[in-house]
């Protein structure tokens, strides 16, 4: 597969989805009422959104896009309060300590589900929190340099890695039990290849390591390396989904590669404390779900490759997604021999 072809495919798919989105205007929450009165004058002041990650990363940006969409819809302003650290546990702790009055909401990602799976004393996002909306769902891929000549696709990569006798390297995140590390374990178990993972806690050095030839491959989600893809510097060789989305039709998926495991997804969503007054929660659900279909938010999701697979879940859908994810992680952790509390 050539780069040009891939780019062409990607852009055609994007254009198609954009046209479909606009012409048919079939967005997930179009059936919700266009406006809704809050109970007893609520909200009478600005909301606070706690974001357990920094303002510049993926979570910070989705928080900003969603906050602006909600404000655009309801005229209620939202102050974002970034509390990064401890893989999201710090923001979660701070959120649980804040008064549950419906004025404070939380952004969080699937890490909250895996943290709860490992240690059930940590809040369960489907139970201790009420998901307002899940607004981004994405998948992972394996990338190599486009100019790489030692291997060019998934099959030749696996062959090459096996020949290196454990000395081949792939850049990955630095958190045991995370979606990324568990998925890599699935892959190495299924292919029988041995590869040394190099741990990076920040995105930029991870991408730099592949661009500079310090590592042989990279594990990442497409939205995060989009600039490298568009520039033709990186190319995906494996899509970690059972069925590849149209934009990556030429990249082998798990079925093509003969790998048999349930892929884990990355998802980002918005939550409110389960102790908040019920009628306020109903209003928040409406505001966040309706905001998902605001034009600006949709445009943002598109720019982050978040429209390639269905990125939307309402409250019940999110609860289902989280509960399934927790169960999945718990099973994996037990087989990995991790201590599950």
């Amino acid at each position, binding site marked *: 597969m050539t780069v040009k072809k891939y780019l062409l495919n990607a852009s055609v798919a994007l254009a198609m989805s954009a046209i479909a989105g606009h012409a048919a205007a079939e967005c997930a929450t179009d059936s919700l009422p266009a406006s809704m009165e809050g109970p007893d004058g609520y909200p009478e002041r600005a909301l606070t959104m706690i974001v357990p990650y920094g303002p510049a990363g993926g979570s910070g940006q989705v928080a900003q896009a969603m906050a602006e969409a909600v404000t655009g819809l309801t005229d209620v302003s939202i102050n974002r309060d970034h509390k990064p650290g401890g893989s999201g546990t710090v923001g979660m702790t701070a959120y649980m300590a804040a008064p549950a009055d419906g004025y404070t909401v939380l952004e969080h990602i699937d890490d909250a589900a895996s943290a709860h799976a490992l240690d059930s004393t940590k809040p369960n996002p489907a139970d201790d929190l009420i998901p307002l909306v899940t607004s981004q769902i994405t998948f992972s891929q394996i990338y190599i340099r486009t100019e790489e000549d030692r291997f060019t696709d998934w099959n030749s990569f696996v062959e090459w890695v096996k020949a290196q006798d454990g000395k081949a390297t792939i850049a990955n995140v630095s958190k045991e039990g995370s979606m990324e*590390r568990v998925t890599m374990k699935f892959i190495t178990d299924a292919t029988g290849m041995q590869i040394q*993972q190099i*741990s990076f806690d920040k995105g930029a050095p991870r991408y730099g390591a592949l661009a500079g030839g310090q590592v042989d491959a990279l594990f990442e989600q497409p939205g995060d390396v989009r600039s490298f893809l568009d520039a033709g510097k990186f190319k995906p060789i494996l899509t970690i989904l059972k069925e590849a989305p149209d934009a990556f039709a030429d990249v082998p998926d798990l079925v093509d590669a003969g790998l048999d495991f349930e892929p884990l997804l990355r998802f980002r969503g918005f939550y409110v404390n389960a102790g908040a007054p019920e009628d306020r929660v109903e209003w928040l659900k409406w505001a966040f779900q309706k905001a998902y279909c605001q034009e600006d938010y949709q445009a943002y999701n598109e720019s982050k490759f978040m429209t390639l697979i269905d990125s939307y879940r309402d409250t019940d859908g999110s609860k289902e997604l989280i509960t399934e994810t927790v169960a999945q992680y718990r099973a994996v952790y037990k087989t990995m021999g991790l201590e599950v509390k």
Partner: protein
Amino acid sequence: MGKLTKGQIVEGAFWLILAAFFFAYSFEFNNNIEIYKYGATLWPRVILLLIALAAIGQLLDQRKNGDAASTSKIAAIHEDSAQDSQHNSLGWYINTFILLCLPFAYMIVPDIIIEKTGTPEEGTAKINIICGAVLFLAYIAISWRNHVGAILTLPLFFAAMMQDMGFYALAPVFIIGVMILMGERRPTRMAMVMLLIYGILIAFFVSLLYVGLPTGYISPFYDFGTWMVNTFQ
């Protein structure tokens, strides 16, 4: 030989105890990491070993050469603190240490009381406020004759209480407290300076730049904090 002063022994013991404590604690997280055989403990343990070596080396050196030992050619730059005998005695150190513990007691004690007595959600604010008041009175009593200790401790109190009581309510009290400790006694001056500093901070950070300072979690401080934010933002 035998030129070690009491201070040097205390200093050396401090580093050695610190290293030993942290080394012992490192067994808490001595888990295997699948992709890294050195695990999470190698790096801190090597540093602790080097700290222990350097502390012993310093003690031996001082024993041999006194305080002039191995002074680096680039002279010390921070020798500007007043080494007053009054602030060097053992009594002063003990008094100051007790003072410094008080703010941390506020961060721990209320939670223990709440847990032990099984206080319901609504009563926790009261326990926090009462504990805070008791500890603050203890602070005033203990620091009565220890001016420097009082200065060191006050900001810690401010910081420890901020999560519960918020920046907006505590800052005016803190400004006045610092001024009193720095020797200001004229009430009108204090009130004016307090209003000026508080006003500048609110106008600049809250009104102009929309910085979200902590509002606190417990009533009535939380209500005051959110009221301030809504009024000035």
